[in-house]
């Protein structure tokens, strides 16, 4: 029996370890933070942030290193390809920005910094795993690491009622949706006897498996529930506004970008490799979900008065745009989704950073009207927010525009004409509520919130300026990122 089980080669090679380097680095760093926490938490609260940034930068280097030895690792459970690398870079960048955005917030709220940063790092470990996973087990575990870490982060200020509620909702609904995802995984396993994406595809591509298609479709639908939930695509977006609104602002920024990007990565990977064969089946699902997300997100955001909630609805709408790219189910569509996610991450974090800055202690100033006169009191902050908002609207020379352009290009190429038209009209609707912020910021007289606004701290400044520069670069010279995305759409399995 043992002989029967003996594998040819299971000991991880050096390359395997290198391919796993970012996760290793971050795990070690996270653990280190936990150890250092009791020693330094009181004296040097900034230490943990600095250390996490170092760790994340090291992980970036690790990712780059891993990219040099592309291939599968650990019995084909992981696959380091361009796609994975792109998203690893992305979530790491999101991590860095989140950490930068958190310094002042943690300071104001007098929150423990050690665990906070450790959890962020662990969440990123989970996300890095997800994006590089080639096996539904790995995806599941990565997803859970990321999710559990973010459940905790969402309720990090445990004495804050909003935090509690956000965490509870996120946790309960998240687990609920995960159960659906798992059920889908189970069914896929039942049909194909494997959980490896490439193998699933091979099985499905084999002629003679026709009867299985019904089951596969059902599995795809169930997995869609779980994945759409994670990316807050309609009709599974319901949790998003409540959780973003309730969670600590930097965490909300992180939630809106990091887990979402990673979830989209696996969404793309699963649906475009494993389920590629039945693409014509799930395309209508994505189509409907995309349209619903855009519409619900944009229209519901029109009347929002709470900045975080508005950004939450906006993030639903943006998930809709990315789903449009997915509906195109082509390489261009994938590249478009990747590019868009990058652009979206930058502009969204940027916008959230302004909210963090504005909200102040206890997140008192979260109303749209609190932005009044920001253009007068802090022109630089306002200018940065303007860049992000214009990018969110999709005005040229910003990353948001180019991303949107690229998505709709992919959609049109796949003949999704009506989806494109509706999507574009939606973005005109969306312009309204983003413009409203601009209006308040520049055209209203300063109010209580802006008059007593403290100057930007270095961390926040960096967290504002870096995404702003990034947004502009993605808009003006998208070539580099775009090329990377385009080269990386060939999934490892192919």
């Amino acid at each position, binding site marked *: 029996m043992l002989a029967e089980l003996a594998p040819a080669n299971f000991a991880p090679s050096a390359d395997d370890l290198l391919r796993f380097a970012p996760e290793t680095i971050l795990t070690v760093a996270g653990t280190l933070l936990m150890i250092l926490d009791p020693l330094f938490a009181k004296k040097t609260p900034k230490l943990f942030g600095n250390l996490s940034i170092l760790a994340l930068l090291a992980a970036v280097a690790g990712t780059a290193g891993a990219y040099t030895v592309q291939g599968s690792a650990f019995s084909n459970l992981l696959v380091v390809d361009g796609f994975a690398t792109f998203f690893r870079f992305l979530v790491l960048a999101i991590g860095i920005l989140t950490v930068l955005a958190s310094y002042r917030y943690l300071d104001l709220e007098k929150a423990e910094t050690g665990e906070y940063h450790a959890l962020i790092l662990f969440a990123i470990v989970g996300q890095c795993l997800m994006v590089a996973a080639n096996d539904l087990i790995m995806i599941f575990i990565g997803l859970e690491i990321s999710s559990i870490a973010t459940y905790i982060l969402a309720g990090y200020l445990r004495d804050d009622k909003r935090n509690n509620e956000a965490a*509870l*909702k996120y946790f*309960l*609904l998240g687990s*609920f*949706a995960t159960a*659906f995802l798992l059920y889908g995984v189970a069914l896929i396993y039942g049909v194909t006897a494997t959980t490896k994406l490439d193998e699933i595809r091979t099985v499905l591509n084999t002629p003679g498996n*026709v*009867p299985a*298609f*019904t089951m*596969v*479709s*059902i599995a*795809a*639908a*169930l997995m*869609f*529930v779980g994945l*759409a*939930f994670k990316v807050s695509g309609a*009709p*599974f977006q*319901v*949790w998003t*506004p*409540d959780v973003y609104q309730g969670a600590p602002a930097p965490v909300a920024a992180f939630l809106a970008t990091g887990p979402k990007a990673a979830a989209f990565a696996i969404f793309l990977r699963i649906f475009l490799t494993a389920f590629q064969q*039945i693409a*014509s*089946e*799930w395309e*209508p*699902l994505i189509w*409907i979900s995309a349209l619903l997300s855009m519409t*619900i997100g944009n*229209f*519901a*955001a*029109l*009347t*929002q008065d709470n900045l975080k909630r508005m950004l939450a609805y906006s993030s639903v709408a943006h998930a809709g745009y990315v789903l449009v790219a997915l509906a195109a189910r082509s390489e261009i569509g994938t590249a478009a989704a990747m590019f868009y996610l990058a652009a979206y991450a930058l502009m969204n974090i940027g916008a959230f950073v302004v909210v963090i800055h504005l909200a102040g202690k206890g997140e008192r100033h979260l109303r749209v009207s609190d932005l009044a006169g920001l253009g007068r009191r802090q022109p630089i902050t306002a200018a940065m927010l303007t860049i992000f908002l214009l990018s969110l609207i999709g005005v040229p020379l910003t990353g948001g525009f180019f991303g949107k352009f690229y998505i709709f290009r992919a959609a049109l190429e796949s003949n999704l004409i009506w989806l494109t038209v509706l999507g574009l009209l939606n973005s005109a*609707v969306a312009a*309204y509520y983003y413009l409203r912020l601009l209006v308040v910021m520049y055209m209203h007289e300063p109010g209580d919130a802006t008059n007593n606004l403290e100057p930007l701290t270095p961390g926040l400044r960096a967290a504002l300026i870096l995404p702003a520069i990034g947004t502009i670069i993605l808009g003006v010279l998208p070539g580099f990122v775009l090329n990377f995305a385009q080269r990386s759409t060939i999934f490892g399995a192919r």
Partner: protein
Amino acid sequence: MQNLWLIPALPFLGFLINGLFGRKLPKFVINLVAVASVLLSFAWVMKVFMTAGDLGATPVTEHYFTWIKSGQFQVGWDFSVDKLTMIMLMIVTGIGSLIHIYSIGYMAHEEGYYRFFAYLNLFMFFMLNLVLGANYLILFVGWEGVGLCSYLLIGFYTFKQSATTAGNKAFIVNRIGDFGFSLAIFLIVVNFGTLDFTQVFSAAPGKPTGTLTAIALLLLVGACGKSAQIPLYVWLPDAMEGPTPVSALIHAATMVTAGVYMCTRSAVIFTHAPIAMETVAIIGLATAVFAATIGLAQNDIKKVFAYSTVSQLGYMFLGVGVGAFSAGIWHLMTHAFFKALLFLGAGSVIHACHGEQDMRHMGGLKKYAPWTCITLACASLAISGFPFTSGYFSKDAILSAAYGHAPWMYWVGVVTAGMTAFYVWRAFWMTFLGEYKGHGHPHESPWSMLAPLVVLAVLSIGGGFFFNVPHMLDSMFPVAEGVENMNLTYISVAFGIGGIALSYYMYVVNTQLPESIASAFGWLYKLIYNKYFIDEIYDATVVHPTIEGSRVLLWHGMDQGVIDGIVNGVGTQSKSIGGVLKLLQSGNIRSYATWVVLGAVALLVIMGVSALGFAAGVGR
């Protein structure tokens, strides 16, 4: 090279100097610039006249530059002079010079002295352009330009609401005419591909009558506007709000005759469009009668002359309409003499009476202003068609041609002539005889004003005799087969003298009579006195509905109501959709979970159904 451009350019230079620097220049410099520029222009006209040779055979044409060129269409800034132009040039520059001189005295105490002369010079520029233009577009430039100057000068007293309103009215009514004129131009280009007079006229005979009739009628609309014919005459009486020299120059002698000139210029087109000709004649005749009746009952001396102008212009149109183009031009010329004189004389009278214009407050001026009295008498004789005065010749030529065309036109014309004599002399008697009923002490005008009066008086009396226009123009317009019947002449003269006598009886001998007649025919008198209520009718049927309709229906109704209503409605609706969507977000975890389940069910149904179909499809 005759350097025709100098003719309009000189007044234009005057305009520039006075317009740009007039405020800082001393009065005599302004006078000098204004008058000299026009006189020089007159001199240049005479020089051209002397040296150009036989204009009938070889018109002088000069091309300066291409104005508009688009595809094959091209319009140049071209001037040309033929006999018709020459006559017009002489009238315009000649009378223009006189009136400039007259204005020195008349306007001496007005504010904005420089402005007045600048405008006057500008008017000369445009009028000369109009006359000199070798194609319809250059003519149109002048046409619009004189309209502008007319607008400016009518509204010269900018603080007077009535004056500026009259200016607007003049411009806008003229615009309605220009609407027709411009459509005519478009039709000409569409059909002829060019606007050059020579090319158009040489090609015109070959064009279908319908086309030519359309063009001619549209030209007529333009002419009606500029020359104050029915139904567009309404602006001219109001135009008397302007200073009197303006009334004389623009609204009597020159500008208003532009329509006649234009029709005459387009004679080739008109003669090939009999219906249009008939229309011209009828409009002319109707205007002549209509305006004359109104003139009978006016008390404002300038208004009397204004309606008289309208009426006389009707005569000219009658002449053109019956084919007697040269007679029309002849009357244009003599009318320029005597009507300019009448207005200048009226100006002198008004000057004498310290600005009073109501004849009921004048009287007995004979002894205070003898020169004015004499010269005005000359003009009145001329307009009444007293034998051997200028009016006698030209009116006779028109009437006899009208008789040749249709005898009833002659009879209507003759009756009108009688009325003309009556109201002009009525004005004369009311002004100069009897007792002075005004305020202050009336006085004679200065010599700068009287000298032009005298010159014009001479021309009014002898102008018809000296300048036999039909003879001059007979190479261009063969004299219509006039009916050589001296009886017709006697009849018209008799009507004229009869009108004079009747007015003498009513206003000198039996001064109670007018009032009793007025009360006897109360409604008729009221109708005529109020100019048939035409202004009021226009106001009620056109102006008011347009403005109120625009305000209520278009602006508030359409723009703000419907269109913005839809636009804003989309906004509000979007927001309320958002409001509904928000309600789905109840905050309750269990209902959220329900949405997830519902979504899952929906997906399962969709996927299951389509997968079954897919499997079936593959299975087949």
